[in-house]
């Protein structure tokens, strides 16, 4: 029997697991181990030194899955170095002596459904397109609901009256999501939990600090790789706005590019690759909406974001807003992050008081 696995990103293993276990009835979906310090240690050991950090995290997870006897791995691609992840990782894994197949869902920047259909048939001969469409639809909805709820949590978690109430309810919700059987049930569960989230008591003062987080997609979405930045901000009672999530990447990004380009045409004319152009537009948006500060995060050596940084700096100085830049690597010192965050927070407080 084929054993299938995929790298982690945030909480999205739940919908991924849901989809894979339904469309491949004869396949075992491996419970992917959580990202830990060990994961990144393994990943760094076998990765090229100057590759971006998400490569190291995903490679680490892949190796951990292969050690749990997975034999088929799923990887995606994107409009930057991410586009080469699958091929390179497959090669590294083969060189290490693992006998595995890496399925690349995105090649040359696009998803070719005919090719994928063929690949998926190879994994499981019983794979049916109609079933895949149905469960794919539910999965997309699940991702959407998760993202809506995450947005709500981000805005409110810093102000909860009983610490931990948001987090524990979210964990409960994710477990229920992983057990749903059809769309109707998913929708009911979502509505139920949404009401529960609305009922959590929060105390939001009018002069609260608001921060927008922009940056490279993996580092932004995988809390382990950004050293739980959002959690730390929440501890300081800050409202967080974040744009990037999977639903955005899948359905809104392509549609919104033109709009973004028009919106910030004084700052860029051509696409900067990956999410960089989006981040420039978002930076302008955050400045115009009078957010108190902007945090830009990326993994070290992320080329598109490096290109966006000077432009973001320029926008911020035009609007006189502070920006904090973070570059996360496998060897980032946590104390350094803390010091900079604390100083950033102090600065915002001081600016607010004046």
């Amino acid at each position, binding site marked *: 029997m084929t054993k299938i696995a995929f790298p982690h990103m945030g909480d999205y293993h739940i919908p991924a697991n849901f989809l894979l276990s339904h469309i491949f009835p004869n396949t075992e979906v491996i419970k992917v*181990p959580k990202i*830990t*310090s*060990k*994961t990144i240690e393994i990943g760094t050991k076998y990765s090229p030194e100057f590759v971006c950090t998400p490569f190291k995290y995903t490679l680490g997870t892949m190796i951990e899955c292969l050690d749990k006897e997975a034999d088929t791995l799923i990887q995606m691609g994107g409009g930057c170095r991410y586009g080469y992840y699958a091929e390179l990782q497959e090669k590294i894994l083969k060189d290490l002596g693992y006998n595995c197949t890496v399925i690349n869902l995105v090649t040359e920047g696009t998803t070719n459904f005919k090719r994928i259909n063929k690949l998926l048939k190879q994994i499981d001969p019983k794979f049916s397109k109609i079933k895949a469409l149905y469960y794919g639809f539910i999965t997309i909805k699940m991702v959407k609901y998760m993202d809506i709820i995450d947005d709500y949590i981000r805005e409110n978690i810093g102000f909860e009256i009983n610490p931990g109430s948001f987090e524990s309810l979210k964990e409960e919700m994710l477990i229920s999501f992983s057990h749903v059987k059809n769309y109707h049930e998913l929708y009911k569960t979502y509505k139920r939990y949404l009401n529960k989230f609305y009922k959590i008591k929060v105390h939001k003062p009018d002069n609260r600090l608001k921060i927008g987080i922009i940056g490279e997609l993996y580092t932004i979405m995988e809390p382990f790789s950004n050293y739980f930045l959002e959690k730390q901000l929440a501890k300081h009672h800050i409202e967080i706005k974040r744009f990037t999530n999977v639903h955005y990447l899948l359905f809104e990004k392509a549609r919104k590019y033109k709009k973004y380009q028009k919106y910030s045409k004084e700052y860029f004319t051509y696409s900067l690759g990956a999410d960089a152009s989006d981040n420039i537009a978002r930076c302008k948006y955050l400045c115009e909406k009078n957010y108190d500060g902007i945090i830009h995060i990326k993994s*070290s050596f992320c080329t598109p974001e490096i290109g966006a940084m*000077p432009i973001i*700096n320029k926008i911020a*100085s035009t609007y*006189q807003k*502070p*920006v904090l830049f973070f*570059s996360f*690597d496998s060897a980032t010192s946590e*104390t*350094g992050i*803390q*010091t*900079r965050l*604390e*100083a*950033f927070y*102090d*600065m915002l407080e*001081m*600016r607010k008081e*004046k």
Partner: protein
Amino acid sequence: MKDCYLGVDIGSISTKGVIIDDNNKIIASSYIWTEGNPVEAVRKLLDILKEELPKGYQIKGIGTTGSARKLIGLMLKACIVKNEITAHAIGTLTFYPNVRTILEIGGQDSKIILIKNGIITNYAMNTLCAAGTGSFLSSQAKRLGIDVEEFGDYALKSTNPVKIAARCTVFAESDLVHKAQVGYPKEDIIAGLCKSVVLNYLNNVGKGKKIVGPIIFQGGVSKNKGVVKYFKEILKEDIIVDENSHLMGAIGIAVLARRNKTGNVYSLEMKNLKFITKAFECHRCPNTCELLKIYRNDELVDSWGSKCGKY
């Protein structure tokens, strides 16, 4: 009894302590080497301050800053523990309310703080690299066989500073060795080194920042006249170096301690205090967090380093 406030800045290389009164007047101060043992350094520091402190003062607040701020904060039961960026800004603003730019170069880090109308508007801190910080200068001083304190005087003697590849400390060092072996005079090499520190700072930390006067330069490296000279030359602005520039962080945190006083009276007597830290590695999950437990008089006051929150 008059009130006074203690600020302690425990940096990577040096530990600074300042006692100020209600009018921001420094009544006692000290500057000693940390030598990798912040707890012992602070004990020594407090002994010196105790001697210096005139009679008739009582300490009403303690603040800690610097890289060992959390640890020493627990040791001294500080009423405020703040990062060094805020502390430096507050300290400088107390004496120079009109300052616009603070350049700070310390032992292992360097930062720039931009200020407008008395509030911090932006700041930056060096990220991955130690190029252009005090520890680099002091290790190069050792290599050249002179005291760090004399570095500035040597640099001023030079009329022709050599160019040193300054992007990275490792390359700078090999370039420096090369220049020395080729036969350049010591003064010129030292001057070149000071210049490279300035260039590095401006290219790395100061990148994209608009540096407007009045500019204040502080941190341990500000005592180096050579570096000050090249900052003036390159920025084409006057650079103010306060005589207490190395103590600014400590002064700032003392001011913050005054603002946050709790009403308690503190003692500088640390002889009988037992303060130990125990480190161990947790093996419950593959994270293998390095945990640190801190005991004050045999009582567990805090433990750090846990990712899951079990400790």
